[in-house]
C-alpha cells in the first residue's frame, strides 16, 4: 500500500506535481506559453520516477515493519 504521507520523498512528489499542474493545467488565455513542450515532458518523466520511488519506499517500510 502506498498513500501520500509527510516524508521528504512525498514532499518531492508534491513539488513535482505542483510544477506539473502549473505547466500542464490551468486556464490558457493566449497561445503564448514561455516554456517548451520538452520542459513539460521532463517534469512528467520526473514525476513518474518519483512515483516509482514512493512505491519502493512504501514496500521497504512495510517489510521493515513485518
Amino acid at each position, binding site marked *: *500500500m*502506498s*498513500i*501520500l504521507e509527510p516524508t521528504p520523498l512525498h514532499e518531492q*512528489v*508534491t*513539488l513535482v*506535481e*505542483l*510544477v506539473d*499542474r*502549473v*505547466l*500542464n*493545467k*490551468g*486556464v*490558457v*488565455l*493566449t497561445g*503564448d*506559453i*514561455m*516554456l517548451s513542450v520538452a*520542459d513539460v515532458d521532463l517534469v512528467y518523466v520526473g514525476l*513518474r520516477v518519483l*512515483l*516509482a520511488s*514512493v*512505491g519502493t519506499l*512504501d514496500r521497504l517500510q512495510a517489510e521493515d515493519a513485518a
Partner: protein
Amino acid sequence: MIRVYAFVAELERLPDTRGVDERPLEEHVLEEISAVISRHAAPATGDPRADAVAHGLVVEALMALAPAVVPVRFGQTFADDAALAAVLRERLDGIRRALQRVHGCVEIGVRVAGATLPRSTIAASRGIDYMQERLARLAEHDAIAHDLHERLDELARASIQSPRGEFEAGYLLERDRIDAAQDAVRRFAATHPALTVVSTGPWAPYSFGGEAAS
C-alpha cells in the same frame, strides 16, 4: 509585463506570498472579474522551474483566502493593462462560469501506477500470444482503476481523466468531501497492495477552468 496567476471570486485579501521574482501581488478587477497579477519590468531571466513553483505557491495561497479560484497556466504574460483587458473581455463569460463551477471546491489528484502498461511495452510486442497477455492484463488493470474512479466520481462535482497511459484523474470536490475521498483512496490502496496509489492535494482546481479558455 503583467503575469496572471488566477481568477478569484470573493477574495478576502491578497496573500502575504510574493509573486514570481518576489514581485508584489495585485488584484486587477475588470467588470467584476478579479484577476491576481504581478507587474514586471522585464521578462524573467531566472530558473523557469523556480518561477513555476512561485506561480503555483501564489495559486495555493489564494485557496485559503477565496471560495473560488480558477488557476491560470504558468507563462501567461501580457505587455500592459490594455493587452490584458483585450484578452479578458473576450473571455469574461467563460471565466465567470468557471468561477461558479469551482465555487467551494478543491481538486484532488489520483494516480495509480501499474494500473495500465506503458505504451512503449505494447509497441515492443513480439507475437500474438505476448500481445494477448498484455491486452488481458491491461483490461484487468483498467477495470481495477475504474472501480476507484467510480467511487470518487460519486463524491465529486466533476472529474477528469488524463488520456495518458497510466490512470491519472482529477476530482473537483466540495471541501467537506475531501476526507471521504481520501478515505476511499486509502481503502483502495489497502485492497490492491501491488499497485502504487498516490493521492495529492487538495489543490486549486487546475483541471476545471477549461471553459474559461474557450
